[in-house]
């Protein structure tokens, strides 16, 4: 096996980031161009550059529907991928991922509770989602800690159980409520990147971008902590502070993302692993790569979810799970001795 272990320099981080930014931009242009009504890249580009007031046919579709949706997909993909990367590093477990660990499920319960209580999306529902994420995180850490701290199987099993419990609780809440919005909530659960306004997009970005920055600042300590907590501490890393900062940042960005786009599963598994194969395990490179590459991945998955069905569309989570679940099984099999 050859390993892509070229030395990570600021220059290499910039080069890789530039390449992936281009990929992300292309995927957004594609997402804006294709759909139930064909607009085409050229017209889409004119509509984007022409501004929201452009008279061009299709400008309304681009500006009201597709562009916000593509940007939501990009932000969701970025934070879910980065969430996966952070949990894999902290728990030193290649199978850790917000969805598999049940953290997405916990956020969803929080978000649904907020919706059923009739709260505004921000800050009410987002806060409930964050609380749900922290509660599940605390639960799985408490369940898997103790004698065999963060041991692989204990952690995965806890996650599976928390996930099952969350799914049951969600159905329980939905059935009790007899809410007219039942169908839309169910759809949202499978990862629906529905309509969103630029105002909400701005709020979402304002919450997740500082998390991205904080995690990038902690990229080198994450490398060291992969070697072992005691070794990291003996190299000058304040392990406890870094761990808490990473857990809070990752939970915050995952929960606000889930409260917008529902359960888009496995993104945090697929993207970091693909990137690690190409780029190596250094987080100073993987953090920006996950943000940009993860964004592009979900934008493309959502595009497929829109164009594949003859009529209507399917949730983006269907596509990400169809790619991610087989990869999970492959990784699980390969990681056994």
């Amino acid at each position: 096996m050859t390993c892509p272990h070229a030395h990570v320099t600021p220059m290499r981080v910039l080069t890789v980031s530039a390449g992936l930014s281009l990929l992300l931009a292309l995927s957004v242009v594609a997402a804006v161009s294709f759909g139930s009504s064909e607009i085409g890249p050229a017209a889409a580009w004119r509509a984007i550059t022409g501004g929201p007031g452009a008279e061009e046919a299709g400008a309304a579709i681009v500006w009201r529907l597709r562009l916000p949706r593509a940007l939501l997909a990009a932000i969701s993909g970025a934070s879910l991928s980065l969430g996966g990367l952070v949990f894999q590093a902290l728990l030193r477990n290649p199978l850790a991922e917000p969805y598999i660990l049940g953290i997405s499920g916990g956020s969803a319960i929080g978000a649904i509770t907020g919706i059923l209580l009739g709260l505004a999306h921000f800050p009410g529902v987002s806060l409930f989602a964050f609380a749900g994420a922290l509660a599940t995180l605390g639960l799985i850490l408490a369940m898997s800690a103790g004698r065999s701290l963060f041991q692989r199987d204990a952690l995965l099993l806890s996650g599976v159980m928390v996930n099952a419990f969350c799914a049951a609780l969600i159905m329980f809440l939905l059935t009790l409520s007899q809410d007219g919005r039942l169908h839309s909530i169910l759809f949202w659960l499978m990862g629906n990147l529905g309509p969103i306004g630029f105002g909400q997009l701005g709020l979402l970005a304002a919450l997740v971008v500082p998390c991205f920055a904080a995690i990038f600042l902690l990229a080198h300590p994450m490398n060291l902590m992969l070697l072992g907590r005691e070794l990291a501490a003996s190299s000058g890393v304040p392990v406890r502070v870094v761990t808490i900062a990473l857990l809070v940042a990752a939970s915050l960005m995952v929960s606000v993302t889930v409260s917008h786009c529902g359960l888009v599963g496995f993104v945090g598994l697929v993207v970091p692993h693909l990137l690690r194969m190409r780029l190596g395990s250094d987080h100073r490179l993987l953090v920006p790569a996950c943000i940009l590459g993860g964004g592009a991945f979900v934008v493309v998955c959502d595009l497929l979810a829109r164009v594949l069905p003859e009529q209507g569309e399917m949730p983006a989570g269907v596509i990400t799970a169809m790619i991610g679940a087989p990869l999970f099984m492959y990784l699980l099999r390969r990681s056994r001795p």
Partner: protein
Amino acid sequence: MIPAVAGTDLSFAYGRQAVIENLSLEIAEGDFFAVIGPNGSGKTTLLRLILGSLAPQAGDIAVFGRPLAGYRRRELARRIALVPQGSVPVFSFAVEEIVRMGRAPHLGLLGFEAAEDVDQAARAIAAVGLDALARRPLDQLSGGEQQRVWIARALCQQPRLMLLDEPTAALDMGHQLQIMRLLARLRRERRMTVVMVSHDLNLAAMFATRMLLLNNGRMVCSGTPKEVLQPAHIRTAYGCQVLVDRHPQGDFPRLTLPVR
């Protein structure tokens, strides 16, 4: 001269389980210091107390004349480096990537290495003789080579004191000797203090300048290998009779287990 490590009346307990009791020790700068004792005698805990990853519940510990509490974390990391028992990280890193991580306490905010840091890492890799394998993933190396990588990583920290937790435990005879010779050479060339936890008394006797024999968290004996490795002390600590004679090639003790 200021000792590298000075501990007075150290006590440490996990919960109500006392692990180190009333232990005082002094490690002079430049010593090759072996901590020996049976399983559960508190060797690794002592190492952690020196490293500062555990704080004693009673007693004081000073490193290079300054109490551990008086150091900032990165400052301490530039003086003390740890060689762990050796494990392979879940994600693959190349040898040089791991060794460069030893520069951590010398790096700036974003943790990118300057040319000088890359140089230091290359020198550390050369010092343990792994130049040819620098770009290979750690998991493709043999156990002995991996142990040398962890030593190089610690060297790269440019410490004055290196702590090792059973560095030869998982190695065959040839590699054990190789690692010990490497440590002896590094100590000599860099005037570094080496503190090592070991189960292999014969190997420790050949290389250590000073020894500390622990039992149930208390000192049984401390001194040169000749002074410590005596049948009476070994019986106290390990509960078994040994024959002690002289190594045929040098003036250090050799232990042999009796047939009956």
